[in-house]
C-alpha cells in the first residue's frame, strides 16, 4: 500500500525524479499565485467591489485577526509567512475533493519542509524583535540549566509539527482507501467529508502553533505561559 504520494513517480530522467508530491505542490503554488494575482490586479477602494476581492479580504482580515489574537503586536509583519502556511495547507487539503489528487501534505518531505521553515523563522523574527543577545538570552531563562531542554524543545516541536500534519493527512487518505475495500461506497464519502474538516483544522493548528512559537520568541516583556509554547 502506498504511504505517501512520494512513491508515485510521474517522470524520471537519470537521477532526476518528478514525483506526485512535487507536481501537486507546483500546481498548488501556481493556482494560489495566479489566482491572487488575477484578483488583486483590479482592486477597488469604493463601495463597488468584485466578489473575489471580497473573498480575499475576508480571508486576509480573518488571518490577521487570528495572528493578533495570539499576542503578536504587529500582525501585518507576520501575515506573509503565517498566511502562506495556512493557505497552502488549507488548499492542499481542500483540493482532495478533486479526483486523482493526492494532498502533497500527505508526504513527510513536504511537512518537514514546512516545519523547517517555522524552525528557521522563529529565531529570525526573535532576533529582529529583541536583538541577538536578547533572543539568545531567552534560551538560558530561567536558569542556565534549562539550556539543553530549551534547545531540545525547539527541535522536538519542529518534529511534532511535521509528524502531526503528515499523520493527519496520510491517515485520511489511508482510511478512505481501507474503507473502499471493505464497506459500501457511502462510508468513504462520509470519511472524505470528515477529512476535509480535519484538513482545515490542521491548517488552522499549524499556522496558530507557528504564531504561538513566534510570539513566544518575540515577546519582550516577562514571558507568560502561552498555550503550547513549551512543547
Amino acid at each position, binding site marked *: 500500500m502506498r*504511504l505517501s504520494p512520494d512513491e508515485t513517480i510521474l517522470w524520471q530522467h537519470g537521477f532526476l525524479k518528478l514525483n506526485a508530491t512535487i507536481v501537486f505542490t507546483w500546481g498548488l503554488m501556481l493556482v494560489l499565485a495566479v489566482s491572487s494575482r488575477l484578483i488583486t490586479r483590479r482592486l477597488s477602494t469604493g463601495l463597488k467591489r468584485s466578489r473575489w476581492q471580497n473573498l480575499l479580504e475576508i480571508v486576509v482580515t480573518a488571518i490577521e485577526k487570528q495572528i493578533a*489574537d*495570539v499576542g503578536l503586536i504587529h500582525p501585518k509583519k507576520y501575515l506573509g509567512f503565517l498566511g502562506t502556511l495556512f493557505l497552502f495547507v488549507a488548499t492542499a487539503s481542500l483540493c482532495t475533493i478533486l479526483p486523482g489528487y493526492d494532498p502533497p501534505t500527505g508526504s513527510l518531505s513536504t511537512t518537514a519542509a514546512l516545519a523547517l521553515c517555522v524552525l528557521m523563522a522563529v529565531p529570525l523574527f526573535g532576533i529582529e524583535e529583541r536583538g541577538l543577545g536578547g533572543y539568545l538570552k531567552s534560551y538560558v531563562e530561567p536558569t542556565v540549566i534549562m539550556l539543553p531542554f530549551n534547545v531540545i524543545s525547539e527541535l522536538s516541536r519542529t518534529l511534532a509539527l511535521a509528524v502531526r500534519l*503528515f*499523520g493527519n493527512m*496520510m*491517515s485520511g487518505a489511508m482510511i478512505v482507501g481501507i474503507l473502499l475495500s471493505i464497506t459500501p461506497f457511502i462510508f468513504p464519502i462520509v470519511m472524505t467529508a470528515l477529512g476535509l474538516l480535519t484538513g482545515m483544522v490542521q491548517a*488552522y493548528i499549524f499556522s496558530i502553533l507557528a504564531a504561538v512559537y513566534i510570539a513566544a520568541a518575540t515577546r519582550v516583556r516577562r514571558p507568560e505561559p502561552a*498555550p*503550547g509554547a513549551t512543547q
Partner: protein
Amino acid sequence: MDSVTAVALVSIVIAGIATGFGCLGPALAEGRAVATALTSLAQQPDASATITRTLFVGLAMIESTAIYCFVVSMILMFANPFWNYFIAHASGK
C-alpha cells in the same frame, strides 16, 4: 517458525496494541479537555474566542501522541524495515 513469519506476527500484533493503547490515552485526555472547555464556555461565554483557540491548540498537542502511535503502527504494517531486511536476506541466500 522462520524469522520472516516471526517478524510479521510480532509487527501485526504490536501495531494493533500500539494503535489501541495509543488511542486510549489521548481519547481520555481529549474528553477531559473538551469537557473542561465546555464548562468554561458555559461560565464565560464572552471569552469564547480565547477558550476555543486554546482548546484547539491543546487538542492538537494531545492528538499528536495518538498520531505518533498511528504512524509507528503504519510503519510496522506497511514499511517495516526488519521485514524488508529479512526478506532481502532470505532471497540472497
